[in-house]
């Protein structure tokens, strides 16, 4: 309606044509500043040293020089990591209620001879004594342990997501400006959501381990709280942006706020809610492998324990398990996504 005509200069007036260069001094100054910033921050993060060390490593690998800290460090670890640890052996005497007829699949009881040298105090001679101990040897024992830990990781992720969803639904209600009872509840809810979102899972888990001790409780709570912040924010924003017309229809007959949200908002936002929740589940599955590093249960806790004890063979088994887990997860989610579309 309100279109303005393009102004036309009066007949006969001279027009000034000129076409500038695309860059001016201003742009040069900005470019120099950016370069300086890159150099300073690059030096502070030791990017220069990284380049030197990597060059050395590459040189060492192609036989140009014979010293490289990186290659030495990596090959030391790689040597001790291979082969991955699969078996466990445990002294039968240490197992409570050992039943020789009821041992795990593939496992067997072996006799191990251990020879110890000891000084005989009478003869002052070194004597070797041989002791035989019964050992339960399970060739896949550690694989089973890791599998159990992976299941625990999965459970932590599931419960973290469940906790996040159930926390964020009431949060979203109070954080949606059109349904929050008043300004105070709105501000409180938004503030709480920002707080939950702003602290990374690992840091939350660190403190929760102090409160709840080592184990999955801290993991579930850490994952749940962070994700509740994310979901609360997105759930609330979808409620705010939902089409107002159906809401007005129910408001007009006095259905009340909760029923209005259930019947006029939920049908609209549900597909988005499912997408957000699926994203959080995916994220939690990955994070659940990591929160254990600070003692919050799952495979990460096992990894940290083994790493600290220099059991690199065990570490390798765990890394393979995590890789397989994430790989399967990606396959699965790709398949689900292609089915849903």
């Amino acid at each position, binding site marked *: 309606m309100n279109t303005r005509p393009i102004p036309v200069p009066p007949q006969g007036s001279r027009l000034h044509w000129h076409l500038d260069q695309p860059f001016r001094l201003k742009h040069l100054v900005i470019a120099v500043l950016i370069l300086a910033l890159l150099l300073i921050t690059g030096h502070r993060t030791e990017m220069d040293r990284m380049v030197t060390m990597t060059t050395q490593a590459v040189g060492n690998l192609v036989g140009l020089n014979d010293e490289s800290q990186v290659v030495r460090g990596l090959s030391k670890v790689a040597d001790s990591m291979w082969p991955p640890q699969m078996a466990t052996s445990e002294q039968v005497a240490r197992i409570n209620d050992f039943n020789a007829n009821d041992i795990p699949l593939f496992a067997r009881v072996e006799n191990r001879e251990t020879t110890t040298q000891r000084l005989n105090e009478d003869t002052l001679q070194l004597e070797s004594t041989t002791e035989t101990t019964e050992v339960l040897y399970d060739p896949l024992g550690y694989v089973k342990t890791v599998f159990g830990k992976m299941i625990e990781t999965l459970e932590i992720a599931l419960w973290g997501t469940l906790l996040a969803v159930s926390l964020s639904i009431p949060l979203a209600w109070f954080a949606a400006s059109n349904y929050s009872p008043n300004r105070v509840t709105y501000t409180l809810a938004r503030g709480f959501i920002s707080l939950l979102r702003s602290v990374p899972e690992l840091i939350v888990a660190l403190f929760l381990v102090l409160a709840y001790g080592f184990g999955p409780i801290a993991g579930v709570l850490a994952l749940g709280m962070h994700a509740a912040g994310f979901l609360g924010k997105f759930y609330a924003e979808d409620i705010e942006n939902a089409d107002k017309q159906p809401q*007005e229809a129910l408001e007009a007959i*006095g259905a*009340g706020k909760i029923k209005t949200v259930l019947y006029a908002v939920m049908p609209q936002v549900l597909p988005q809610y499912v997408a957000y929740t699926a994203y959080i589940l995916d994220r939690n599955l990955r994070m659940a492998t990591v929160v254990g590093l600070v003692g919050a249960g799952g495979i990460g806790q096992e990894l940290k324990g083994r790493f600290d004890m220099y059991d690199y063979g065990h570490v390798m088994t765990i890394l393979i398990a995590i890789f397989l887990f994430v790989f399967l997860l990606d396959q699965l989610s790709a398949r689900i996504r292609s089915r849903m579309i």
Partner: protein
Amino acid sequence: MSQTPTSMVKLSAIDKTWADGTRALNSVDLEVPEGQFCVILGPSGAGKSTLLRSVNGLMRPTGGNVRVDGLELSSASERELRRRVAMIHQHFNLATRASVAANVLSGALPEVSMARALCGWFHPEQRKKACHYLERVGLKPEHLHRRAGELSGGQQQRVGIARAFMLDPKVVLADEPVASLDPQISRDILTLLKDAARELNATVICSLHQVDLAREFGDRIVGMRSGEIVFDGAPEEFDDQRLSRLYQNADWGDGQPGQVPEDSLELDSAGGM
């Protein structure tokens, strides 16, 4: 306060000035008896929606008071009053992603417990009633589980009417229920609405901007312009002469000439105050 037993809706001296200074209603008095099909006629911007929305409190008037079925509208009585007043909307206002059945059932929500609402577990009588009204408005059983947004405009308004009748309303407010539909479907919808209301002896206040539809369906025509009632009488009294006198220079805003006699067809944007 005393009032005639037949008065269902009574608006007294309703004023509305919007925050931007627009005077949408200027001391409007209107009394609608029980069972009447009252058409509010007026060009776009006349204040029809504002008037209708003052009846159920969706719009808070700046002055005046509203009585429906003997109950005075206040924040305390609003909820109770709204159960008796259904509303039909120009844009149907359905939850487009929800099923037709869910939309119709949602019309009964004020009388459903929270637990039932949460699980969608409506009373068997309510389900029966939803089916009854859907049949009544001319939809088929296979529409029940269709998404409301997949229906045509006319079908969506039928769902809107079925939803409005779920609580046996005393008053039905219909705000331009056929403004986005073509003329033949408009007639079908208004016939449906009128018949359904008659069955329940419900009072209907229906805003329209089509003069011919107003004459055809109204028991009474209330003409509005610029926030004031400029005509109130039987359809027969509302002849072309009157029409052209009342609505000179008015912007009917629907690009449908022929409803306004030729001599008043000067479109003028100043009319839509």
